[in-house]
């Protein structure tokens, strides 16, 4: 009886959806996606943090592949990430630019960096989220890879660890440097 087939369609559709869900589970949702990926860094200009002379603006992001890292002394995950950033600095593997996001007062950021070390080439003070908004940041820490032309190539949410550095950051950086 061919009138039976409509009764099978829900099962078939569920099967197809289940396939996608199962496949989707294997993917890293944190990798998804900033609307800014493959776009030029938006314009921003941040003042220096206390005790430093130079701030950080979009014009600093030229002619080299760099990381832009959003952090804050109040952020626990940033503290977890910090030693790894220090390692990157010691190995001179890549310049890191920092955006010091929403400090409770102007001395908190500098104090924190004094205590734990400063891995950043330049730091912009961002108490009013101007830089964070430009980068579409949802939380700290977040890290962006910017290529030689000042284009955002990758966004990582959460702390950078040795594992995700080797797995995701390294291949992207190598590819960008070869270009």
């Amino acid at each position, binding site marked *: 009886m061919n*009138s039976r087939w409509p009764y099978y369609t*829900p099962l078939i559709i569920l099967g197809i959806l289940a396939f996608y869900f199962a496949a*989707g*589970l294997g*993917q890293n949702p944190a990798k*998804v*996606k900033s609307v800014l990926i493959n776009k030029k860094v938006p314009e921003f200009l941040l003042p220096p943090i206390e005790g430093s002379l130079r701030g950080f603006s979009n014009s600093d992001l030229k002619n080299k592949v760099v990381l832009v890292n959003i952090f804050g002394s109040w952020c626990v995950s940033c503290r977890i990430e910090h030693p790894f950033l220090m390692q990157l600095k010691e190995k001179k593997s890549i310049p890191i630019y920092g955006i010091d996001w929403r400090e409770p007062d102007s001395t908190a950021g500098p104090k924190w960096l004094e205590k734990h070390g400063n891995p950043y080439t330049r730091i912009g003070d961002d108490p009013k989220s101007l830089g964070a908004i430009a980068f579409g940041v949802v939380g700290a820490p977040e890290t962006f890879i910017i290529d030689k032309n000042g284009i955002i190539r990758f966004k990582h949410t959460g702390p950078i660890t040795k594992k995700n550095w080797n797995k995701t950051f390294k291949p992207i950086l190598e590819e960008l440097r070869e270009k």
Partner: protein
Amino acid sequence: MIVEIGHFSLVLALFIAGLQGTLPIIGAHQNNHSLMAVATPAAIIQFILILGSFIALTYAFLVSDFSVINVASNSHTEKPTLYKISGVWGNHEGSMLLFALIIAGYGAAIAVFGKNLRPTLKVRILGVQALIGTGILAFILLTSNPFLRLTPAPVNGKGLNPLLQDPGLAFHPPLLYLGYVGLSLTFSFAVAALIEGRVDAAWARWVRPWTLAAWGFLTGGIVLGSWWAYYELGWGGWWFWDPVENASFMPWLAATALLHSAIVSEKRDGLKAWTIFLAIIAFGLSLLGTFLVRSGVITSVHAFASDPTRGVFILLLLIVTIGGAFILFAWRGPTLKGAGLFQPVSREGGLVINNFLLTVAAASILLGTLYPLFIDVLKLGKVSVGAPYFESVFVPMMIPMIAIMGLAPLLKWKRGDFKTAIEKLKFAIALSVIGGLFVWILIDRASAFTSLGMTISLWLLTATLTELAGRIKLFRSSLRESINQLFRQTRASWGMTLAHAGLAIAIAGITASSSWKVESIQIMKFGDQVNVAGYNYTLKHVREIQGPNYKALRGTFIVNKGDDINWVLEPEKRFYTDPVMTTTEAAIRPTFLGDLYAVVGDRDEKSGGYITRIYFNPLVPWMWTGAIIMVLGAGISLTDRRHRVGAPSSNKIPAPGIPAE
């Protein structure tokens, strides 16, 4: 100790649910009455055990027992009591426990109130309900146990996300779950009927009130969430087509369709397979929502911390539950032949078209929500689907639906007369067309779309009232007779009238607020004035205040219009420390024509002023009022006498002209 008792009783509940999910179904199959007799007491005991477990967790939150991981990560001693309680379900583990509690609660309700149900059907419903419960309880105990201990216990907890510390949001999840999980019961009804191979009017009569209850809760839950977004996110938006919002909207659409197709199944013995199908997908979409929120396959502002293990488990649960039901459906569905034949132009015809439109709308929202996932899995890049897609797909489907919604209640069952119905509605047609033209010509900034929105809103309202007027014989008999008739209308028919009229009012609010919103963002110093939509706002001062667990900047605006109006609006910007977060609390003053809406932002260092955002959101109060009227309609319909007296077993077809409710 109390925490351990809670943990233990949850394990026991899993065991009982396992028994309840198997023995009665076997018993019903073998006609073994002692096995069938397990169902009712098991359902009640299972509910009591989960309730005990839930109370134990609530206790741990109330006394701030930070040796429990869940409490330590989501509570804080300085949190107000209301938010200590709402913290129980403000996290993944606790919310799943609430989910399990409500599943068992609905089961227990059937066990207690389902005396008139056919015994085999009743125990099968309880069995299926317990199988769902078993899945959820196993999920909690294996992947998301809220009773795990933490050593050493911290001095204080991490606190609840401040955005969730809000009265609106405290009750949003329980309502939403009562809705989602209510659909688990209609699902159990559908699967039990498929196992029995029998769908009759008595079955449909039982399904309808439970669907209605679930629909009412779901509507309330969605509206509460939307209202929260409106005043808490601080820019006057109330719907974002976020995946998680869609996840609650899709089951709502399916439940709305189910509500109406069950009427045809009850009154006309038709659309049986379709009603069963809707009952399955309505719960399927609820589970899908749970999966989307908790597995992290889709990014959303609402998503809980994602955990692939949990995702795998919920996906399996989804596949087994819904796949199993669909297999039964493929097997039994073709045998469910309806008796009620009908002409295309008839009340059934109208209900079928609208069912179709609602289902297609739900499907296109599903497609839009999952599209980023499809593209991602197929390695075609990353995309996001936003409001433009949903609006351009959803809105055009709603326009014919509303047109039919006004018309169908005036058609007769089986074979309606289009001409007579239009004749009755000529007043409604004229009024809505004139109203639409009026909006287009006389009001600034009215697009064709705005006037169309106003036209369909007016059409639905006037057509609904015309139908009511016809029923009470207004203008066709004496006024006194009409008023008598008005009081003699069944509560179920009041339910329909209110729900449809409420939707009409809400549509006016939605149309106006998306067309005529006025917004003004500026830096204001103390004493500065700004005029928004005819109201004059003066920033008097901004002061620092101390809340129970936050500090806040409170701005004070004096609002003037003419001599009569002299209001004070006090928006806040709150700074929480546990966890660190800033929230905005908009100050809203509703008026008949719209909300005055003010937000105070950061201090501008250069000028010394404050950034302020002031909106006029036209007819937004109509939207909330309309939604409340809809929920009220569901509530009134539920108190209909019919639902309380025993359902007659005869398959009587009512006289034509009785309204669908």
